[in-house]
């Protein structure tokens, strides 16, 4: 039986992975070839998707991008034995784009069968939980604190400190909640984990629950991720079947279980307190802090709430030790960051590396510049609330503090590249529009400010006359309850600052026409 690995990652499906898989199955039965098709996550090299790998005597051999029409030719070329073909990529792990990465969180993604506990264990899974159970609650907390891991959802708060607060809180029950409401445009790492290595998230949540003394976990995912939700639910069932989740998860009568919940299309539910409200069955409106979720979170109980990537990084930290993780990185940004290159970029995908790589290296060297072949004009880092950086700022290292110092943010690690046809006035307006559509309505600067901001941009004659918008942004930044209203000024003000020429009413139209 020859194993053929074909992704069922949603982005691979979006470019024909399902059709390719069906074609491989059809062709194999036609030719009487004994083939076992394993549906994996994605390796994260999306310009090569659908990327098919074959297990041969010499190791895994990759082919891509494989359209359904190519499959008969691949069989003719003997691809089941690693035969040469124009789509041959050889050993994908040796491919420079992948080889240069430091894959800790994404070590297994695209390689393992996401629904097989045995495969997970064979690739190093469950070592972290095993060690946590051996060293006990306090030492587990100590490891996470010493690793320097900070919240990968965007806020960058030290994960271990958050856990310690929950561990020290007294309550009849505690919760671990995973924020999988990955709504930022340009980000897809959470989705890839849930589709490609869901058990790393389950293990990370189990370690968190063990460390703080929680017995119930929730994953709050998005309705926009139907495939991730199916895979993750199946992975939960697979782990439950082995007893890894359930009444004896941490030993006899020491329970832990995880429930998957799906949002309903509200971006603001990615904000942690809005997410908790939504889990409780309410409108996803932001809570006033304090109290912090670590003290009074879900149903008023102490709650660890972490992003998918934070939790999925924990098994590696426990298995390999805090010092090994902290050895990667720069300044106060320790470890690795799964960076997502997206939009108008030649080599889009998941690039996990230590903090400190510069924005220019990411966009030009790793990303290969634009897909359109035109010059890069602007790069939005950190989702819809992130600043637009011009190439002049490409020396900025990927690090929480370095981006903050330049009025930007790394957020969830998404980078969206735009070429010179972009209209930055339209992008600034969209930032306000998006905030108006998604505002939860609880605080006035966000609810009203976003709509007034879009109107003010329509009336603007020149970037020089932008005092009103700057003043409004000041109010939103310091007066909003959460990051939605508070960070919408980042894309707006950066567009005004670095691309003032796009706000000249007279000059803008011909310039855009020429570019378009």
């Amino acid at each position, binding site marked *: 039986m020859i194993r053929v690995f074909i992704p069922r990652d949603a*982005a691979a499906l*979006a470019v024909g992975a399902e059709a390719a898989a069906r074609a491989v199955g059809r062709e194999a039965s036609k030719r009487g070839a004994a083939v076992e098709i394993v549906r994996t996550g994605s390796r994260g090299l999306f310009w090569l998707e659908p990327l098919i790998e074959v297990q041969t005597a010499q190791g895994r051999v990759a082919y891509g991008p494989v359209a359904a029409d190519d499959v008969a030719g691949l069989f003719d070329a003997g691809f089941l034995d690693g035969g040469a073909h124009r789509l041959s990529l050889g050993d994908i792990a040796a491919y420079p784009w992948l080889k240069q990465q430091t894959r800790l969180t994404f070590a297994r993604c695209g390689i393992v069968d996401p629904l097989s506990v045995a495969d997970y264990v064979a690739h190093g899974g469950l070592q972290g939980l095993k060690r946590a159970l051996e060293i006990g609650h306090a030492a587990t907390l100590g490891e996470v604190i010493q690793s320097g891991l900070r919240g990968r959802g965007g806020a960058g708060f030290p994960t271990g400190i958050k856990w310690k607060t929950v561990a020290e809180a007294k309550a009849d029950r505690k919760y671990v909640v995973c924020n999988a409401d990955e709504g930022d*445009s340009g980000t897809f790492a959470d989705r890839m984990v849930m589709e490609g290595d869901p058990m790393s998230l389950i293990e990370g949540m189990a370690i968190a629950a063990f460390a703080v003394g929680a017995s119930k976990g929730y994953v709050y995912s998005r309705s926009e*991720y139907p495939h991730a939700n199916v895979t993750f639910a199946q992975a939960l069932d697979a782990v439950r079947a082995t007893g890894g989740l359930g009444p004896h998860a941490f030993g006899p009568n020491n329970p832990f279980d995880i429930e998957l919940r799906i949002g309903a*299309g509200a971006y603001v539910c990615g904000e942690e307190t809005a997410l908790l409200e939504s889990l409780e*069955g309410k409108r996803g409106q932001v809570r006033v802090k304090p109290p912090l979720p670590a003290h009074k979170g879900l149903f008023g109980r102490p709650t660890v709430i972490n992003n998918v990537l934070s939790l999925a990084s924990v098994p590696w930290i426990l298995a390999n030790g805090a010092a090994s993780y902290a050895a990667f990185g720069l300044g106060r940004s320790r470890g690795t960051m799964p960076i997502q290159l997206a939009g108008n970029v030649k080599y889009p995908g998941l690039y996990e590396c230590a903090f400190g790589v510069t924005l220019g290296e990411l966009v030009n060297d790793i990303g290969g510049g634009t897909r359109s072949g035109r010059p890069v004009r602007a790069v939005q880092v950190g989702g*819809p609330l992130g600043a637009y950086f011009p190439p002049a700022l490409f020396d900025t290292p990927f690090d929480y503090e370095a981006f903050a110092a330049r009025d930007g943010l790394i957020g969830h690690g998404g980078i*969206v590249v735009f070429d010179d046809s*972009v209209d930055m006035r339209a*992008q600034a307006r969209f930032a306000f529009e998006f905030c108006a559509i998604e505002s939860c309505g609880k605080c006035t600067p966000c609810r009203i400010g976003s709509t007034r901001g879009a109107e003010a941009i329509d009336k603007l004659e020149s970037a020089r006359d932008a005092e009103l918008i700057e003043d409004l942004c000041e109010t939103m930044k310091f007066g909003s309850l959460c990051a939605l209203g508070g960070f919408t000024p980042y894309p707006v003000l950066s567009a005004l600052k670095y691309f003032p020429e796009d706000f000249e009413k007279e000059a803008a139209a011909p310039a855009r026409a020429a570019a378009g």
Partner: protein
Amino acid sequence: MSQAEWNEARAEAVIAPLAGLEGPLLPMLHALQAAFGCISDAAIVFLAERLNLTRAEVYGVVSFYHDFRRAPAGRRVVKVCRAEACQSVGGPAAAEALLAAHGLDWGQTSADGALTIEPVYCLGLCAVAPAALIDGEPVGRLDAAKLKAAVAA
């Protein structure tokens, strides 16, 4: 998208497996919408009674979330991403062409009930943008012609 006449016995059966959940309102709304195609007034009254909430509270939740519909969608639902990554590679032009071809605006359903086109803000398919979800199936690397063909397929 399945559609069915409101039927209280069926609604009871749909929410019964969810009764033991903590904070069950969203899972129940999803389940009822999946069964009946939308959240009708009858469904709001039904859930308010079952969960000991006011109708206003249930309505408040239904109206807050973009996913919950008060009227059934078309037989085919197309969710086109309008967020930045798709904007950077011609998403808006492809979307505009689709809307124009069907004479629809965002969120509208065609008069014959065949098609609903909705905006969505990020499908996590940003590496294969522009992207859309057609009856739950993802499509990527779109342009106007490919999007139109995928919707017609």
